[in-house]
């Protein structure tokens, strides 16, 4: 309970500090929106030309796109500090965090909340509403819960990936650019249901990095392409991905030697 209150205080602090530069904040917000709006335009023109892809209609693709985008954006907002963890290690801030009487991971998360990503969230919400209204899905309470579960599962999976990035920084002390393949790549190509990329990609995204568990399989059930109700539980399983990530963090923390400056 105490932690939540502390997080709220940190959150308001970040919000206030961003509001000091209002113009810059809103410009970045608009920029975020425009950049991801391009991706939407790409999807829109492709879908008007082809009407459907592997049996998914335009509104279904948008629904899928919005779920991935929303999960990614929420994860990026909350876990942004892990994405730039090498700077926290590099400038010695992490050493200061270790001295504080609170969980170090929690304090790292508190150190940065990136609200400019909300520009993208607005787009995700608009697409989600459109997808919900115009797709041929028969909405039952269970299906509504499933959408929420998919988004939460996605946040956890992306969060776990960010956590793994940060753990690697313990050993390399610098950021590993190519790891962006997993986050930016998943955002970029998660705009379509993962299954359309073929069996190999689906295999990787099921067993190696569980993107498909919160995106593709539950989506099949959601759109009625599969009757397997087992699929609707898979977002919960994707949360399990946090466990190895967390163990890795513990391991990294144990072996962490300060950068020494």
């Amino acid at each position, binding site marked *: 309970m105490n932690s939540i209150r502390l997080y709220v205080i940190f959150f308001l602090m970040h919000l206030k500090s961003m509001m000091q530069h209002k113009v810059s904040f809103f410009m970045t917000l608009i920029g975020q929106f425009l950049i991801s709006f*391009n991706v939407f335009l*790409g999807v829109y023109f492709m879908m008007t030309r082809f009407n459907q892809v592997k049996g998914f209609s335009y509104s279904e693709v948008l629904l899928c796109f919005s779920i991935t985008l929303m999960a990614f954006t929420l994860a990026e907002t909350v876990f942004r500090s892990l994405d730039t963890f090498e700077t926290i290690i590099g400038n010695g801030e992490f050493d200061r965090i270790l001295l504080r009487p609170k969980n170090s991971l929690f304090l790292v998360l508190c150190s940065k909340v990136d609200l400019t990503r909300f520009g993208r969230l607005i787009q995700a919400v608009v697409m989600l509403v459109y997808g919900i209204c115009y797709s041929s899905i028969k909405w039952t309470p269970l299906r509504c819960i499933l959408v929420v579960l998919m988004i939460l599962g996605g946040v956890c999976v992306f969060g776990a990936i960010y956590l793994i990035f940060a753990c690697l920084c313990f050993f390399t002390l610098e950021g590993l650019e190519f790891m*962006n393949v997993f986050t930016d790549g998943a955002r*970029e190509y998660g705009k*379509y249901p993962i299954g359309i*990329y073929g069996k190999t990609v689906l295999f990787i995204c099921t067993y190696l990095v569980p993107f498909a568990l919160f995106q593709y399989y539950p989506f099949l059930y959601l759109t009625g392409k599969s009757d397997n109700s087992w699929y609707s539980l898979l977002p919960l399983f994707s949360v399990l991905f946090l466990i190895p990530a967390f163990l890795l963090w513990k391991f990294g923390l144990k072996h962490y030697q300060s950068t020494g400056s």
Partner: protein
Amino acid sequence: MKKYWSFFRIRFIRGLQYRTAALSGMVTQFVWGSMEILLFRAFYQAAPENFPMTFEALSTYVWLQQAFLALYMVWFWESELFNSVATGDVAYELCRPVRLYDMWFVRGLAVRLSKAVLRCMPILVFSWFLPAPYGLTLPGDVKIWAITILSMTLGLLLIVAFNMIVYMSVFYTVSPQGIKLFVTSLAEFLSGSVIPLPFLPNHVRAIVELLPFASAQNVPFRIFAGDITGPDLTISILKQTFWLFAFVLIGRFLEKRALKRVVIQGG
């Protein structure tokens, strides 16, 4: 001329130092290219008759795009240049016996080329070995190679000239954020880096192809892939030349006007 050449060399060699960044960039580009092709394959399987170009041409386009990303990415800005105008450091540059526009132009070219040189070869070779229709298809005609290289050069100069316009506009607005973001995302889409321009609906495409950004990566890659041939080829090259001249003229005009009334606050 010689001073610009040495300036180019300094920047170019400096860019070559970032090898780890190039390596990770390469990994990203491999993944991106593969995913892009898998995505288009799904669409191709959905309705091959709606595909505006052959699949070989599309694969070639995608791989060239990934290999030469550094040459044509509109979103690549040098914040150092923006900052130098905002902070007034640009005064030092103005003291030098070189023209600001030319020096920054050369700098932009050098940075992009050094990035591209490190990354392009492995991607091109890798994609060449991929089985047809997913890999890079090389044109048999030597003439096409020559025209592609000419067109690529024009496209690169065009993009740098465009960057210059935006850099110069900072003299007028000081805060570059707004223009930068808006212009970047618009140009990205119009240049065909989100989806190749042939995939746009015909009426939209007709307008977009007249705009300057269609003269960047869109033209050389499609020439190489065999998607632009015959009279279209000549027209495309002419359009590229026209827009290049237009952008350079606008940029130089903005520079001249800005420098005439620029005030550097002492400090």
